[in-house]
């Protein structure tokens, strides 16, 4: 009897030791999802309509992603312009491509603010998604995109200017670095990936 209780107590300890270890196994188990897919990320995000989503909810779509913050005055407007430019260059009949803008300033960039930003920048179509999450999740997602950022004053961040393309199973397939760069290759890559969908 004693031994059983002791065993139970120890077992309890083991199960309690890490309550977050369930998260990783929540990831989709489908075989078509490779090791390198962002669908494995358990983080939860909120879009400009206040709806909660996870990366795996965008499964089946080619994702074009960039990290910005809406109060940014210097680089982001150009990054956003680059995104719009890329979007406008895709053939009209291109399907299954989602443009995703992720905030690195989740405190300021509430869903309402993201919605307003989308409107100001004429990015209100279904193909535009704006996301925010906790600072921790944002830091982690930036790590996945190899985007570096730092808050350098109460108002400003410095951040990498990288536009990333993910294929329809969530693998990073192409990155465009810099501002106002020639986007030919990026556009080509998106079209290629979209045709596979």
């Amino acid at each position: 009897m004693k031994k059983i209780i002791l065993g139970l107590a120890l077992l309890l300890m083991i199960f309690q030791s890490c309550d977050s270890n369930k998260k990783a196994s929540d990831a989709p188990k489908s075989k078509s999802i490779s090791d390198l897919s962002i669908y494995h990320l358990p983080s939860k995000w909120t879009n400009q309509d206040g709806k909660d989503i996870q990366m795996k909810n965008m499964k089946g779509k080619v994702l074009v992603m960039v990290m910005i913050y809406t109060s940014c005055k210097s680089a982001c407007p150009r990054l956003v312009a680059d995104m719009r430019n890329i979007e406008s260059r895709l053939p009209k009949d291109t399907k299954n491509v989602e443009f995703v803008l992720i905030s690195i300033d989740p405190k300021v960039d509430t869903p309402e603010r993201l919605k307003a930003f989308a409107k100001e920048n004429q990015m209100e179509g279904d193909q535009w998604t704006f996301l925010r999450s906790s600072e921790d999740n944002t830091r982690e997602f930036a790590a996945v995109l190899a985007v570096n950022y730092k808050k350098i004053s109460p108002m400003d961040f410095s951040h990498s200017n990288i536009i990333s393309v993910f294929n329809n199973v969530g693998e990073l397939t192409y990155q465009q670095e810099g501002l106002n760069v020639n986007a030919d290759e990026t556009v080509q890559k998106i079209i290629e990936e979209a045709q596979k969908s």
Partner: protein
Amino acid sequence: MLKRTIYMSLFSMFIAASLWAQNSKMVLVKKGAYVPLYGTVDKKPVTVNEFQLDIYPVTNAQFQDFLKKNPEYSKAKIKGIFADKSYLSHWESDFSYGKNNLSNAPVTNVSWFVAKKYCECQGKRLPTLDEWEYAAMADEKRTDARTKESYTKYILSWYEKSKTYANPVGQTFKNYWGVYDMHGLVWEWTSDFNSIFLSGESRKDKDTDKNLFCGSGSVNATDLMNYAAFMRYAFRGSLKAKYTTRNLGFRCAKDFK
């Protein structure tokens, strides 16, 4: 009888809990401010709030325990997005660091994702870059020994030594806060390692580089101190979250409540 079994189970839980606690002793690092090498506008001091920090880096034995409880992070099961191919490559097998590694040597060849997860599973987190740098500028006696030439020389001489990663934890010096091995053993992950710019995206950072590389011929204590810090920042700046290298480990931190 029932009373006894309750006592017994309470006792065993107590033992287990204290063993667990022993795995990861922490000390308090008091609030203060420091001027980091990079990342502030106008070189203003950054305030670091009171926090708790592990006394030692996480060891092979501790990490082995973690893997047994969280097998999805073992070499065989880890997802490629979370760690590159050299993840735990010096270990003998999936769940054993083997005979060639000391149980109390720091675990290395771990990615940022896994280090972060490890700390979360202990109810902790990785220290921020500022917290790490702040705690690491203390020598045995002072909270900020950066301007002491012998201190900076010690750090720089370690950067030249090879294979210190195979040493046990706790054999360098105990600093003012009661923390060991901030220098002299392994490099360590920080939560916001990806907040560094050395590629010239921020003009302010670039100026610092210019000062370092194109400064005047004389090298004073401040230059040496900056040089040592520059090495760490440059190293962090070169990392990606899934990278694993033999000389890079980690320890955990916690908010002070």
